[in-house]
């Protein structure tokens, strides 16, 4: 089976190279048959890479240890779910997985957009070039199908124990899909420049694909946080680890793009900026991979280090030179027809949001690479710790939170003083109320940042609430619907807008959760059986230490009775440590009691086998659950925003075009009829006398 996998990779290299060339040559020489053949070859690449991926999955699950990758990442004792997840658990497999998803994603994007005949040939060429790079890497630098020269070993070395965690089974693929999601907007952006079709078409085509990529990047980051929280026993979920930062880089630029794209769609502005953002988002996915795999920085992901980093560096430089070279050559075509009228405008608020997001991305990049850069340039490695990142990222994050509230309130073009007063009054009042209430509840103990967070959270919640309330009001004025029906109608007809608000609400909840860090309590204690320790509002009593085991691991589990300060029994926590016998690698199993208010986080750090005295790390993490709830809201909001339009929006054009013309209707009357068919927002609009009559 490994021969078939390898052969498919070789054929996919040929097919991807031919596909890219055929579509470009066919398009430029006006040979539609060659262009079509090139596009079919792109689908064939997806099929061929699927053959390779299926072969790899077959080899992993059937335990063919004659293949080095299978030997290095699985063993006979592993449950089947980790045999499958071993596909992305190592260098070669994860690259093959990346290639597989990229080829499928590319084929789907090309198929869906195949009608855009000017853009697709160039987009296909870019996607096929990216695919060819990965195939070359797999064939010549990280071959997943290479075998032992001698006989096959009887058992494998097993998967890294840290990766044998349910979150880790899904975190890497979601990150990869997120990374790959950035390739489609990049390809269509470059295609727009190469073809000269630099209007809003490419932006429109890419928006949904970018949102899907962004959703997966977000999911990947969330799952990574959950994994770090439960598996690494840090006591927290985010420590500005280089690889965490690497995942955050494209997320920041992609978030900026998803906002600035609205300015181009609505006002025709930010053309160059949007192009820059898609290029940067794609480049940061490569930077992230380079950081993860080159070993250039010390990270929790050191298991993924290898010597293929320089290939990614080369590809990164090549991509940037080609992309920015094309931008320079097509600078005239990317000039925006209009300029920003006022600083009191939504365009300016979005621009500011973009600058902060990009500033954060470059700050993160430099700070992440600073230890390596200082080592190379100064001959001394200067480490950059969590407090340094927090010092910069917390205020920048809070400015972003403020803009999250301002953006939807402020008008396009130029906002008047009256409009500003009317729009900002209630949200600002709610912000002040939040600050007063939380200060009274003791939030000032955490310093300035938490109280600022709550004030801004109140402001953004006020903004969202006001937007929804006013939207319902406008809708009800025109449709006489009940309140729930008007709310549902509003969300269904404006999925992008209201999905965005749900995402904003999720972000607010996350900020509230993050603010809990200011109130964190931590203790390191040693306890003998029967002894108790108090932390926060909990009283913990150490009951006993149990030793269990299986063929492949030994487990030591402490049992802790948790009571509240009034003596009421709340739960029993069982922090543990596992020792994997084959790798001799210990892992920590954290015990967590979660509530709306805080998490009690208990880590078994060590024990004395004779006296059964245990060393524990106890942490109170306030408000953590709000981070997870906010993450859930973010996912729900993105799904709403990305959901395809319903039947009302995809009505057959025949109802309002050709057939109607035959009935002697003018095109103008048709337009009014179709616009009115959406059944909303007709009121108080000078451009819409019908609505004005109603009011």
């Amino acid at each position, binding site marked *: 089976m490994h021969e078939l996998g390898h052969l498919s990779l070789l054929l996919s290299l040929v097919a991807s190279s031919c596909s890219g060339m055929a579509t470009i040559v066919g398009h430029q020489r006006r040979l539609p*048959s060659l262009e079509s053949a090139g596009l079919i070859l792109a689908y064939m690449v997806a099929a061929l890479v699927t053959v390779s991926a299926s072969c790899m999955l077959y080899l992993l699950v059937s335990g063919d240890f004659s293949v080095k990758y299978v030997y290095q990442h699985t063993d006979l004792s592993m449950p089947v779910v980790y045999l499958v997840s071993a596909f992305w658990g190592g260098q070669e497999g994860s690259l093959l997985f990346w290639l597989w998803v990229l080829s499928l994603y590319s084929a789907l994007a090309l198929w869906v957009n195949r009608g855009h005949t000017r853009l697709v040939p160039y987009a296909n060429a870019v996607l096929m070039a990216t695919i060819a790079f990965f195939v070359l890497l797999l064939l010549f630098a990280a071959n997943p199908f290479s075998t032992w020269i001698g006989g096959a070993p009887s058992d494998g070395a097993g998967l890294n124990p840290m990766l044998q965690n349910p979150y880790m089974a899904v975190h890497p693929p979601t990150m990869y899909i997120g990374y790959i999601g950035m390739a489609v907007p990049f390809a269509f952006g470059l295609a727009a420049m190469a073809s000269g079709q630099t209007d809003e078409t490419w932006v429109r085509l890419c928006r949904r694909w970018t949102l899907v990529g962004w959703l997966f990047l977000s999911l990947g980051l969330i799952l990574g946080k959950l994994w770090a929280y439960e598996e690494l026993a840090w006591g927290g979920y985010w420590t500005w680890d280089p690889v965490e930062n690497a995942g955050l880089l494209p997320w920041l630029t992609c978030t900026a793009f998803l906002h600035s794209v609205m300015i181009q769609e609505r006002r025709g502005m930010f053309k160059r900026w949007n192009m820059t953002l898609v290029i940067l988002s794609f480049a940061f996915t490569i930077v992230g991979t380079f950081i993860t795999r080159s070993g250039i920085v010390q990270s929790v992901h050191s298991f993924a280090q290898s010597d293929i980093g320089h290939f990614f560096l080369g590809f990164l430089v090549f991509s940037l030179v080609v992309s920015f070279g094309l931008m320079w050559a097509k600078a005239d075509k990317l000039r925006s027809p209009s300029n920003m009228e006022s600083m009191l405008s939504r365009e300016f608020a979005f621009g500011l949001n973009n600058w902060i997001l990009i500033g954060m991305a470059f700050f993160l990049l430099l700070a992440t690479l600073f230890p390596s850069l200082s080592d190379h340039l100064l001959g001394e490695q200067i480490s950059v710790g969590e407090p340094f990142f927090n010092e910069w990222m917390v205020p920048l994050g809070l400015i972003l939170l403020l803009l999250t509230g301002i953006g939807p309130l402020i008008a396009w073009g130029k906002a008047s003083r009256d409009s500003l007063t009317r729009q900002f009054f209630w949200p600002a009042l709610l912000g002040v109320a939040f600050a007063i209430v939380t200060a009274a509840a003791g939030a000032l103990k955490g310093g300035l940042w938490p109280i600022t967070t709550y004030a801004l959270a109140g402001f953004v919640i006020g903004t969202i609430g006001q937007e929804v309330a006013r939207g319902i009001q406008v809708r009800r004025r025109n449709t006489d619907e009940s309140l729930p029906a008007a709310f549902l109608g509003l969300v269904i007809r404006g999925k992008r807008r209201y999905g965005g608000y749900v995402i904003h609400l999720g972000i607010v909840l996350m900020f509230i959760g993050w603010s809990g860090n200011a109130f964190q309590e931590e203790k390191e204690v040693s306890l003998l059986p029967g002894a108790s320790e108090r932390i926060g509002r909990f009283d913990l009593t150490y009951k006993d230490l149990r030793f269990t085991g299986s063929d492949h691991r030994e487990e030591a589990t402490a049992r802790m009775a948790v009571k509240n300060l009034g003596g009421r029994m709340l739960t029993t926590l069982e922090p543990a440590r596992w020792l994997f016998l084959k790798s001799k690698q210990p892992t920590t199993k954290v015990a967590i009691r979660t509530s709306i208010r805080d998490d009690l986080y208990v880590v078994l750090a060590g024990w004395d086998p004779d006296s059964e005295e245990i060393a524990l790390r106890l942490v109170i993490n306030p408000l953590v659950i709000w981070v997870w709830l906010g993450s859930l809201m973010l996912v729900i909001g993105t799904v709403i925003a990305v959901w395809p339009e319903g039947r009302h929006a995809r*009505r057959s054009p025949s109802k309002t075009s050709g057939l109607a013309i035959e009935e002697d209707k003018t095109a103008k009357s048709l337009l009014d009829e179709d616009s009115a068919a959406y059944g909303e927002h007709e009121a108080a609009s000078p451009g819409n006398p019908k609505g004005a009559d109603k009011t």
Partner: protein
Amino acid sequence: MNTTRVSSRHGRAVSVLVAAGLAFFFVLGLSGQDDPLLARLFAGMAAMATSIAIFLVGEVLFALRGKAGEGLMGSFMERELLAQEKTRLLTAIKEIDFDHAMGKINDKDHLDLRSRYEAQALEIISLLDREEAIFRKEAEALARARIEGLYKSEEARRATSQ
């Protein structure tokens, strides 16, 4: 870019069957008899992907020989794109009306944007009408040819029975 009209229906069905047969015979032959069920499923997936790849080789050859980009599908694709564009513009009009009603766009901007979108939408609707006329003409020609063919074969059948 049309990739559909490249072979006759029968030819394509035969090539699919041959590709699938070859792939399943070849790939499943490589897998072991004692493999777990999941491994056999992955082998089946590899076989299916192989058959699709073989089938697509045929499609590439047909595409190189054929005159892709012509016929009803071409018009249909263009019409679909125009319809999508029309929907987008109408949605954009809806959104700016909403923004205006919510006080997010001033009267001047609202009028400017609305008239710009209206002009674009009218242009698209006119194009759709033109496209539809072509589409209908082609459909009618096809239907006429089909009816004539049926009529002729019926006449031939009568002639032979007499």
